[in-house]
């Protein structure tokens, strides 16, 4: 869309053009060059949609935020020593333990971001899995097996079938 060296076509504007606009009306095309603010004034977006900004969510939580809401959130993470203030600044956690170190506030934050705070996807099993996790894991593997069969990916289906048998025996 950017046009090197062009100046905005809007009256009394000499800003560099960033938008090359072609309009087609009644089979006739008109070309114009616009700067960012004139393009926006005409309702033409020049920027991609903003990504989810965790810091904004944290700011919105304000006084009810995890740092104030729970005693544990005031403590740094026991594994990486990240504080909630560090997290608030960077929007990035320090290690997997931060999720539990920042307590109930983290669950609230996840609810704000995702509209949910509980995982409903595939289950990863540690060496000694709980029975409930094993059941969820098997459900996921069976869904994967069906998907592989539907896609006629029989090599993958065989791998998944063996994995399911392995887990069924272990359970």
């Amino acid at each position: 869309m950017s046009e090197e060296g062009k100046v905005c076509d809007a009256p009394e504007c000499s800003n560099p053009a960033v938008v090359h606009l072609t309009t087609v009306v009644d089979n006739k095309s008109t070309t114009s060059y616009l700067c960012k603010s004139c393009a926006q004034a005409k309702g033409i977006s020049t920027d991609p949609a903003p990504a989810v900004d965790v810091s904004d969510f944290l700011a919105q939580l304000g006084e009810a935020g995890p740092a104030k809401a729970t005693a544990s959130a005031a403590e740094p993470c026991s594994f990486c020593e990240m504080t909630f203030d560090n997290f608030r600044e960077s929007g990035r956690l320090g290690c997997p333990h931060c999720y539990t170190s920042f307590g109930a506030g983290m669950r609230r934050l996840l609810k704000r971001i995702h509209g949910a705070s509980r995982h409903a996807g595939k289950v990863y099993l540690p060496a000694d899995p709980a029975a409930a996790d094993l059941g969820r894991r098997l459900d996921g593997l069976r869904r994967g097996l069906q998907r592989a069969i539907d896609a006629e990916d029989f090599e993958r289906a065989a791998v998944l079938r063996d994995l399911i048998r392995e887990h069924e025996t272990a359970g």
Partner: protein
Amino acid sequence: MTMDDFLAVPDFGLGWLDASGPHADIVLSTRVRLARNLQGHRYLSRASDSDRQTVFRAVARAVDQASLPDDPVLLPLAELRRRTQRILLERRLVSDEIIGRSEPESGAGVAVCPRETLSVMINEEDHLRLQCLMSGLRLVDGWSRVDGLDEELGRHLPLAYHHDFGFLTSCPTNVGTGLRASALLHLPGLVLTKEIDRALNGIAQVGLTTRGLYGEGSKFVGNFFQVSNQTTLGQSEEDLIDHLDRIVATVISKEREARRVLMRDAGAVTEDQVWRAYGLLRYARALTYEELMNLLSGVRLGVSLKVLPSPPVYSLNRMMIFSQTAHLEDAAGCPLSSSERRAHRAEYVRRALRDESAHGTSDPGP
């Protein structure tokens, strides 16, 4: 294969360009990625050099032991020349973040299965970013392949997982499934008929997000829009994929409808614009990348509408990749100033279009 000669493999990591997938005239590519981390290790923001090296070695060992569909090539990014790092970026195999502003962080790497278009970034924002990149709209297939890779690596690596929160990630916007699936769509019909803002608003209202060609923070160029899921927690991977698949299918049908309207109500103007775009590409002596992308957009539309008999979509896809800065400098064998880049880009495109003519599809000019 060593890291020195991987670029000698034709189209290394570029299987997704072949335009073989469904709706490839509108959907350039489908990408499905999973964010994963290792238990007991700090994320990049808190990790020391030694932490990063430990993670790199653990992942390298797992990649070596895992049974993968294709022999992976493991590339420690810091050992590659800057231009080679940028070539990987331009081929969408690594991110801006992992190659850094001036150099990659210690322990940063990428493992690529060249034929299967599967890859794993190591020590990016998360310890592992698993990716499958395919031609056309193939979200279910892409998910199935990256899921297979995840299963294999998960057998050899202790992943950070919580029974309530799912897969734990550096940024809470990725936690749960760690899944970000996207389709890169070429939507000139909706742009020209001024329906694009309505379409983008509709996409946002159903919980999806739209980005530019190069993902988060990138601009909309050449009428390309990347549509992806926004949330990762609370729904299964299949539900997230299915929702995105259905919405993208709707956007494709709206785009096809817009193209029909364009040809019906402004056929002569559209045809003229398409031919002008082709003519400029065929004869210009200097092109900026954005100018090239806009002209390629016109030609791509013309090929899809059968206004132009050639070049094939595959060749247009290749031109997008090989006319980027690092690829041009690699072909020239030296750094290029911005005016030299514009000239080399125009020359590359002229030659590519001339070669197309020489390979049977004669110059489409009347």
